[in-house]
Each structure stands twice: as C-alpha cells, then as structure tokens.
C-alpha cells in the first residue's frame, strides 16, 4: 500500500547525466571567479553564527594562510630548482652534503611558528571548554538513528527524525530526484529550538553506539557516548535555521540522522515553549525509565476509521520503522526481519503491540512506548497488519494500545 507519499518528480539516469555535464561546464567557468565560486560551491568553512564559531573560523584561516606562506617558500624553491638545476641545462652538480647551521635554522624557525600558532589555539580552546553558567540545558541523546532532545528545566522532551520526504527519496532505487526535495537529508520532523543570545549547554549521551552531534554553524562537534555524558555549549547570535548531521559512524543509517537547530528571538522561543509544554503540562511522572516522558499525554481514545489509521500509520512507519524494516516491509534479514508476511504482523494483535511498545530484548528492536503516542502506535500496528499483502483486516485503536501500556 503506497499512497501519494512516494510520488515525487522522477528523472532518468541519462537526463541527470546530461544535467551534470551542463552544470559542470558552467561551474568550471565559475571556478575562475574564485569569490563567486566560493559562494556557489561551498569551498570553505563558513564563519557560523556563534562567537566561538567565528573564532574557530579565524583560527582556521590563520593556519591556512601560514601554511600557504610556507608552501610558497618551499614549493617555490622546489620549482625553481626543478627548472634551473637540471642536467639538460648542462649544469655540474654541486658537492655540498650538509650543514649543521642550516639544520638548526630550519629546525628552530618552524618551532617558533608552531608556538605562535599554539597560543591563539589554546586561548580559543579554553573558551570552548568553559561550560560554566549556562542559561539553559538540553540533554541530547543519540539513537540508531535519530536524536532525542530533553529540555531539562522546562520538562519538554521529544525525538527528532529524518523528514519523511527525504526518507522516501533516499531509499535505494526510489527514483525520486533528491534535487526535488527541499533540504534533502538535512530536514527533520521536529527541530531543536533555542533562543538567541542565551548560553545553551548541551549534555550529550547515547542510547546505543557512539554518535556525534555536529552543526557546523554552531562551531564544532562532540561525541555522544553510551554510559557517559559529554558537555558542549553555544550561544547563537543570529536567528535562523542551522543544519548539521551525525558525525560518527553509527551503523547503517549514519548518513540519515540530521540535526536541525532553529534559533529564535527570546519572545518567540517563549511562545514556542508554551505551545509545546501546554500539551505536556498534565503529564504523569514517568514510571521507572527516568528520562522518558511521553510526547502526547492527553488521553486520546477516539475511534478512527481504517483509512485514517492507515494513512497516519504509513507516515509513522516510514519515519520510525523503515530504517530497519524497509519501506516495503521486506526488512534486511537476518538482523532486521521482514514484516511482510511475518508471524508477528499477521498473528496475535496483543503480541504485536507489545513488541512495538516494549521492544525485544537481545535484538536491535527498541521500545517505542516512550516515543510514540497511543494513536501513533495504533496506526503503525494497523498499517503493518494491512500493508504489503498482510491483509488481516485488523483495526487497532488507541484505546487498545493504552490498555497494554
């Protein structure tokens, strides 16, 4: 059952090939105008939007220019020598074979240059490592393959997944042109929202393997390590949307867990916060998981039609389940079992709901009970029981899921 979600513009391989040649010809011409090319092609690091990122950018340019200066001298000498000191010019080779004085000179000069480089670097590093006195703290947890954001002081908590249109386009052989997807692979369903001008401390950890949280415009990255908490901080100067990605190989979908940070003026942020926490205000204390706070606490037992559940289910399935079980339900055995025709998806309904709610110990199947609402789990269950030829005709309602929590 594939609905309208998968129909995006399609182009043949040949058409794309022709397009590259056209674009590349133009782009090569652009390269001659280096300033234009730098903007068009992303040749260099960008200064970013925090004081630290600007500092890092300046440091990067400083070292770069020092390297260029050394290169001009060394490569200049080499090129001069290659053209002047060649046998075809009839030269006789000199006989000198060393000089302690010269060795001392070219040992000490680089040494001095290095010290000159180390001082501003150390200064910047001390600034980067100073996580004291934050205005707010967000705990970020890496999962295979999404991020969880917990606003520790505000009691707000949500997961951030790859946006659904990118997710569909990135499937092997999807034939959806990535160019037709806005912010391809760099868009999420729920971004991290922060106020500008406030020192935001990030506490990083992971639920499974090591990930790394990297938004270039915020000035750097840090690893999210299971069992450990790492700290970093940023203070955004300019409102805007800043995009990044996981930067530490974390398995199959390492390339598909982007990070989006929306920085807004403090007033807008407060308003956003009220909207979010308004929904979660009457939350019961989470049971024993400590960190888990369900996103939609308002009890929602409305009966839904099969069509409504299937449509919502497909969306949720693609966002949360398709990384392992694949969009077509075929899975990737043996690690990720198929759902199409599987015993779980066509057998006992309660057992099916249970495995989604609580995961399966000893496998990579995680518990979604904390992450998805009763309605979403009901929709996904319904979808899995009726898609890809699993024509059980079963309809699972939110109340069924709530009964099993």
């Amino acid at each position, binding site marked *: 059952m594939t609905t309208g979600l998968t129909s995006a513009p399609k182009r043949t391989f040949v058409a794309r090939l022709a397009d590259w040649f056209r674009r590349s010809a133009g782009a090569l011409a652009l390269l001659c105008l280096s300033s234009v090319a730098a903007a068009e092609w992303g*040749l260099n690091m960008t200064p970013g939007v925090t004081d630290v990122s600007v500092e890092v950018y300046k440091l990067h340019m400083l070292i770069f220019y020092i390297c260029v200066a050394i290169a001009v001298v060394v490569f200049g000498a080499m090129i001069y020598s290659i053209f002047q000191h060649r*046998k075809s010019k009839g030269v006789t080779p000199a006989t000198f074979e060393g000089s302690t004085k010269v060795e001392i000179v070219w040992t000490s000069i680089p040494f001095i240059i290095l010290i000159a480089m180390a001082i501003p670097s150390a200064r910047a*590093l001390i600034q980067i490592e100073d996580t004291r006195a934050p205005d707010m703290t967000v705990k970020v947890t890496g999962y295979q393959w999404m991020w969880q954001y917990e606003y520790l002081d505000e009691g707000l908590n949500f997961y951030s997944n790859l946006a659904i249109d990118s997710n569909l386009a990135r499937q092997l052989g999807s034939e959806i042109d990535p160019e037709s997807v806005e912010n391809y692979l760099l868009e999420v369903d729920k971004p991290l929202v922060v106020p500008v001008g406030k020192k935001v401390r990030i506490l990083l950890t992971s639920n499974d393997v*090591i990930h790394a949280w990297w938004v*270039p415009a915020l000035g750097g990255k840090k690893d999210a390590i299971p069992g450990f908490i790492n700290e970093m901080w940023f203070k955004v100067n300019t409102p805007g949307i800043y995009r990044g990605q996981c930067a*530490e190989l974390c398995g*199959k979908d390492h390339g*598909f867990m982007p990070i989006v940070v929306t920085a807004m003026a403090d007033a807008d942020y407060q308003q956003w916060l009220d909207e979010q926490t308004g929904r979660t205000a009457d939350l019961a204390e989470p049971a024993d998981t400590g960190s888990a706070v369900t996103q939609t606490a308002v009890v929602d037992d409305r009966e839904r039609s099969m069509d409504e559940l299937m449509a919502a289910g497909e969306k949720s399935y693609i966002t949360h389940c398709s990384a392992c079980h694949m969009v077509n339900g075929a899975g990737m055995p043996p690690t990720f079992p198929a759902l199409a025709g599987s015993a779980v998806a066509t057998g006992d309904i309660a057992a099916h709901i249970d495995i989604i709610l609580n995961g399966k110990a000893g496998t990579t199947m995680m518990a979604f009970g904390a992450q998805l609402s009763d309605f979403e789990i009901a929709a996904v269950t319904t979808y899995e029981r009726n898609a890809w030829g699993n024509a059980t005709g079963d309809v699972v309602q939110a109340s069924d899921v709530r009964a099993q929590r």
Partner: protein
Amino acid sequence: MSTETLTHDEHHDHGPESGLKRWLFTTNHKDIGTLYLLFSLLMFFVGGAMAMVIRAELFQPGLQFVDPAFYNQMTTMHALIMIFGAVMPAFVGLANWMLPMMVGAPDMALPRMNNWSFWILPFAFTLLLSTLFMPGGAPAGGWTMYPPLVLQLGDAFPFLIFSVHLMGASSIMGAINIIVTIMNMRAPGMSLLKMPLFPWTWLITAYLLIAVMPVLAGAVTMLLTDQFFGTSFFTASGGGDPVMFQHIFWFFGHPEVYIMILPAFGIISEVIPTFARKKLFGYEAMVYATASIAFLSFIVWAHHMFTVGMPLSGQLFFMISTMLIAVPTGVKVFNWVATMWRGAMTFETPMLFALAFLFLFTIGGFSGLMLAIVPADLQYHDSYFVVAHFHYVLVPGAIFSIMCAVYYWLPKWTGHMYNETLGKWHFWLSTIFVNVTFFPQHFLGLAGMPRRIPDYSTQFADFNWISSVGAFGFGLSQLLFVYIIFSCIRGGQKATDRVWEGSHGLEWTLPSPAPYHSFETAPEIR
C-alpha cells in the same frame, strides 16, 4: 650476462626449485619479496575495486547502486585491505628484496620465518574477504572497529578479529626479521651511520611495528571477550569504557600511520640523490628526524579523539605534541629540497614519482598541521577534510613512494628496463587523477560533509561527482602500471648493472637482474 650463468657459476650454488613448490617453500629473500609485492598488487586492486563502488555510489545524490549497510562494508573493507593488504606488505616486500642487497647480506637473517610471515597473509585475507559472503555481510563498523558499533556485527565479527590477529603476527615476524638482519648482517665496515636511508627508516619502522602490533592484538582480543565471554572492557553498563578502546586503538593507530610513511621517506631519500646526481643533504639529520618522528608518534594518539570529551589539559598536550611532529617532518622536506638544490636533475619515472611525493605529501602535511589545532579540528573532525588529508598522505604519499621504488628497482629485479614512455604516462595520469579525486574533498569537508555517509545533501553534489570522475580515472590508470610491470618482467631493453647514471649503494654493484644468491661473500665497505 644471463640469469642462467649467474645462478650456476659460484660455489655449489643452486637455483630456485621449479613450479609451485619454489613459491610455497622458498626461503629466498628475493622470492619472498616478489611474493609480497605481487600479493600487495592484488590487494591494491581488490581494495581499489571497493573504492570504485564507494565513488560510484557517491557520484550523485540519492542511493543508486548499493544499500547503506553494504556501503559501510565497502568503506570498512577498503581501509583494512589497503592498509594491511596493500601498503604494509608492499613495504615489507621492498624490504625483503632490497635490505640484504643494500647492507651487503646474503639473505634475511631468519629465512624460514620469512616464508611463514608471508604465507600467513593469504590466509588472513581469505578469512577477511570470506565475510563478504556471510549472513549479515562483511565488517561495517569502520576499520577503527569502535565498540559498541563493532559488536553489532554478525558472523563476520570473529573472522575480523582473527584476521587482524594473523596480520599482526605476520607484521611482527617481518619486523623481527628486519631488525635481526640489519643489526647482525651488515657488511664489515658498514657502521649504522654508513647505512643507506631505506634500511634506516625500515629499522625504525620495525621497532614501531613490534611496539604497537601487540597493542592492536590486545585491543581486538578484548573486543572478542566482550562479545563472547561476558567481559565488559568497553561496555559502560558493565563498568567498562568505550572510549578506552579508542585510546588503545590509536596508541597502535598513530604509530601505524608512521609505519606506512617512514619507509616511504627512506625510498625518497634513495631516489632523489640518484637523479639529482648529488649526495643526500644532511644524512645524519635525516636519521635523527626519522627517530624523532618515531618517538613523537607514541605521544600524539589522542589527536584522533579530540571530540570524545577529554580534559582541557589533555587536549592541549596532544595538540602541542602533534604540532611538534611538523618540525622533524619539515626537516626532512627541507633536506630533500636541499638535495635537489644545485644538483643536475633528470626526470625519469622514479624521480617524477619522488617529486610528486614531495609536493603532495607536503600538502597532506599542511592539512595535518591544521587538523592538530584542536578548535579547528572540532570542525574538521570526521568530515571529508580528514578523508582528503589522510588520502593525500597515503596515496600520493605512501603509494606513490611504492610506485617510485618499483620503477627505481625494477631493472635490478628483472634485468630489463621498463617502458619509460608508458611509465611517464602512468605517472601523469596518476598524478592528475589523484588530485582530481582528493583535492575537492577538502572543500566538501570544510562545507560540512561528514565522512562515511553513502548519500549526501544536494549542495555537495558537484564536488562529489568531480571526485568520482577522478577516482575512476585513477583506478583505470593503475591497469597501465600492471601492464608496465609484467611487460618489463617478460622482456625489454637490457639493464646495466648501475641502471641509473647517478646510482649509489651496494645493490648497484650486483649484476642486473640480481642473481638468486647475492653477497655470499660480504663486500668490503671502505
């Protein structure tokens, strides 16, 4: 002079056995050197084919050819095969062929162990490559094998560990052999400071190998017990620390980087003086610089881990120690330039590769220096900037030096000159394409593209297709290399004993091709 007369004229000398048995049971350093080099060439193409899969998938945004899981298997296997299968065995092969001839020894000191250390390798790589056909596929957690990710591997996991053990055992035996040969079998009168640079750099490399390969073996054994025997060295929930693996791994990994580049320094130090017709400038400084780099390589490992959350003091220490490596490395580059200075250079293929090494390795050195600066590294880390950096030091660095050595000594090995015109074609194609492949990756990294991803945002599309075109060109150019080598083995213009006008050193006093047994009577060094 033909091979026939040479192998039969001295003493009760005997030539090689015939057929397959010659290669299976050989204890001759030249045969084993040839085996190592051919094995390395084969692995170069296996690893290269994987690189072609990677670049084909990255040719345009979207997934066209392979799924992300298989893509990760390709990046992981490409690295393991290129490092342990192509670059390291090539240097050991060169050492086997050349060290006895350069120090005036009749053979390697431990010939039977020499045979064993080679013949372990085909088994190690059969184990490793067989994982491609197992349920769950080949290793996909990166060649760095970081837990907990590596523990998610399927049936491939124990095969990965055991093949790494075997590669380590082979390297350690090779290293012991080299140290024993150099320390005990130099010709009378050849003091250590009269020894050519290639044996010198290999001597230091061999000590590095013995120091760090057991560390790698220990690290992967701990992974094995974590997986199968209930230990939790690297599992936080059991009181372990996943970061500890990274410390242990990079304590091996950074010296490993120099294991792959110090012999290259030795080769370049042989080749440039030959074609500049001038003695190596600052011989002793070169030796001391090599030793300094080797020492520093043990105290810089955590610069691979600046993002794991180390204390400030730790980051500062590793930043400064890493930057210090630029000093001895700079000394080497300056000495090579001074060797060229006021020489009388000619530009045969080995010299061309040596000069490309000098330019392009230095570019890799510059990006390495940039990566040492911690605040900037927090941006560069795990981006394509790093990919560009280490490919610049490994491809036009280590691999170009190997090609340089092959062209330089091939006439001595085969008795024939290689085809100079084709050699130059091979050089220019390789040099142009290697830059087309890897230079744009600097830009990709700075623009924010992480490494080890099978698909990317459309803003990275342009440089990626350029890089892919370069990679395909580089890959195809290497077929020319194979053709040149095999046609040189089959025949060609007869090589003189000295081969090159400016050649210097004991190996050039032997006939070309070098007889099956050489220096049975040690030469006298003045």
